């Protein structure tokens, strides 16, 4: 600044401009210059973008906790020849644009080796595009039919979660044979709702169901009083609730108060553990649905017991939820594949994932080779009455298990895989 001390001219001189510019430049560039060079052989990094804030926040927090358990187990077992794993959780705010930005951050800045996560159909498609372009493996842990279709699928795409076709199909095959044939649909007007309804209809075709009403409602409706009477008027035997989260809770609550449970059987494709606990026994009592996991499976499945015990040890004895388990399995299977491949090289890990038979928490699973959908069992559950519950976590009764079978999926040809 000495130069400007000496000279106090009335108007800015070129030297002033240069001095100020240079000083500003150095100041701004300092943090960049000081940034330490990245180590070549750092930890194995798994990026985990999930909607920590927003309507699915509690579900996402739980997914992150469960994913961390998978990482801790991998590290406790010595990692990959001493190379440890690290979980990088990012908030995608349940928005595709934010998720894409966060995924770019994870890949470009943090140098993530793999990406796993997201909790909505549209967000996972955005993350999938970004990962596929940059040749990173992405393991999706929320429901979607579209992600396995030829238009979106790439060799980097893996889908650990159930998809609507499997879930609704399993529930439909369980319910439709013994119920009346008149079926009504309440559909949340977005991809998930329509995919679920399609899954029910495909399953129902085998039993000759008759669709008597098909009512769509906007996403995140508060008031269902205009939709439910249309369904009551059609007088169905079964009502399929093809909606999710609070939509499911609110529509069930109002249907119960309308006395619809006495008139028809209620089925929900994905019956969620956390939603049921938030809603209470009365609203959900008697509702039948499907799930990827319920903690009581530990009575029969050893891996479920092991997973529950690790989770309980960290969470005051509370068992994990169904979506939480996806987080555990999604990250866990990636690390299993790293171990079996003996490296983090993308193609080697893809090869390992394609051949892996794994049992992380619910029995045997594997990825189908044409579309990388995880072939796994679907559990049919019914919500218990208050009186039948042994404790606050004992909310469902497992009625049946649709075992892991490729026949439950749409065929590779149907999905457009040549």
């Amino acid at each position, binding site marked *: *600044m000495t130069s*400007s*001390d000496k000279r*106090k001219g009335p*108007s*800015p001189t070129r030297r*002033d*401009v240069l001095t*100020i*510019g240079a000083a500003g*430049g150095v100041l*701004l*560039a300092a*943090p*960049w210059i000081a940034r330490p060079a990245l180590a070549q052989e750092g930890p194995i990094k798994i990026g985990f973008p999930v909607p*920590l*804030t927003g309507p699915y*926040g509690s579900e996402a*927090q739980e997914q992150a906790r469960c994913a961390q358990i998978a990482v801790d187990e991998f590290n406790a077992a010595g990692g990959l020849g001493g190379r440890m794993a690290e979980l990088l959780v*990012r*908030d995608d*705010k349940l*928005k*595709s*644009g934010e998720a*894409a*930005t966060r995924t*770019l*951050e994870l890949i*470009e*800045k943090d140098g993530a080796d793999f990406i796993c996560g997201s909790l909505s*159909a*549209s967000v996972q*498609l*955005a993350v*999938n*595009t*970004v990962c596929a*372009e*940059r040749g990173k493996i992405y393991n999706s842990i929320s429901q979607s039919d*579209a992600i396995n279709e030829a*238009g*979106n699928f790439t060799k980097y795409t893996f889908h650990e979660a159930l998809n609507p076709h499997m879930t609704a199909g399993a529930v439909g095959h369980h319910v439709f044979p013994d119920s009346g044939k008149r079926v009504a649909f309440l559909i949340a007007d*977005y*991809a998930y709702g329509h995919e679920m309804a399609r899954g029910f209809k495909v399953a129902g075709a085998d039993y000759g169901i008759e669709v008597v009403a098909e009512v769509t409602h906007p996403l995140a409706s508060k008031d269902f009083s205009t939709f439910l009477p249309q369904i009551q008027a059609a007088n169905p035997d079964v009502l399929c609730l093809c909606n999710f989260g609070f939509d499911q809770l609110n529509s069930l609550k109002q249907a119960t108060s309308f006395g619809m449970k006495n008139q028809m059987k209620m089925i929900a494709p994905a019956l969620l553990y956390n939603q049921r606990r938030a809603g209470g026994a009365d609203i959900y009592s008697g509702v039948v649905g499907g799930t990827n996991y319920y903690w009581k499976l530990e009575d029969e499945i050893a891996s479920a017991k092991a997973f529950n015990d690790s989770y309980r040890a960290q969470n005051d004895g509370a068992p994990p939820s169904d979506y939480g388990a996806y987080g555990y399995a999604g990250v866990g299977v990636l690390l299993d594949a790293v171990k079996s491949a003996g490296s983090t090289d993308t193609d080697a890990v893809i090869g390992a994932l394609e051949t892996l038979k794994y049992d992380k928490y619910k029995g045997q699973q594997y990825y189908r080779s044409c579309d990388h959908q995880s072939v796994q069992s679907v559990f049919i559950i019914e919500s218990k009455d208050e009186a039948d519950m042994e404790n606050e976590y004992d909310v469902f009764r497992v009625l049946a298990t649709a075992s892991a079978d490729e026949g439950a999926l749409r065929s590779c040809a149907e999905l457009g895989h040549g």
Partner: protein
Amino acid sequence: MRVTSTKSSPNLFNRLAEIIGRYRVLAVLVVLLIFPFVLPYQALAANILIYGLFALGFNLVFGYAGVLSFGHAAFFGIGAYGTGIAIVHFAAPWYLAIPLGVVAAGVTAMIMGALAIRTRGIYFAMVTLALAQCVYYIVYQLDGWSGGEDGLTGVTVRQVDLGLMHFSLFNPTAKYFFILAFVAVAIYVFSRILASPFGAVLEAIRENEDRARACGFDVRLTKWIAFVISGLFCGLAGALYAIHLSVVPIEVLHYHMSGQVVMMALLGGMGTFFGPFIGATVFLLLEDVVTTLTSHWQLVLGLVFMACVLFFPRGIWGSILRWIRP
């Protein structure tokens, strides 16, 4: 440094402000050139560029013409979808896809402007909001073209070939400078528009609409043209957004987006040249940093925004300008 500034503080700051004011385009560009090396990561820097341009375009209507539009998400979104659809469905190269998105946004602005410009004040805000929601639902329903709820995926531009120059857009720094090239031209054009007689008429309308009319200016036409120009800038921002993220989510058309750009312009300082960029920078940087610290990021952002509205009603840059030029 401190000694110097107390001795000649008004002088030095005044001179600094004068330099920046005179070479405003250059000043923005200098800052933007070193930007990607200062910010936490390049994808965020590119987002700031894009949102800054969006806010800049919005500011033409809001800050200079003095009408509050709540429908600018429509132009940003149509720009993004126009470019995205050209690339995904017609395999158009980027140099055709981007102008296409901009023109599509301009046409949307012409139609929306023609319908809305006769109203004023809160009615104008409401009409633009309603029209933008119409655009949202039209795009939402055309899921064969737009992907509907799932958004448009696969807007991939891998390689840019400019005669002698070849670079991959998967290199984050190269992508930043690719986007910056467009933003730089846009800023220059914007600066020229403001400096033109047209820009002066806009400010005259903002200050006193009746007087501007009495002076013989066609107020309605001027506002409409400003609205369309603003739509073009926002459309360019949208087009760059599509290429930056390689997806176009339906949320770009949501009214939340329109609200966000109002916040950015207010935060930075409406009616100032640098305000929108500063607003976008502060908003996105704060959101990014706070999100990694706490899941209650909305609370922190809300408090900051409230503090700005209460104590710095002129926005960050507006307050600085007032402070250095009492």
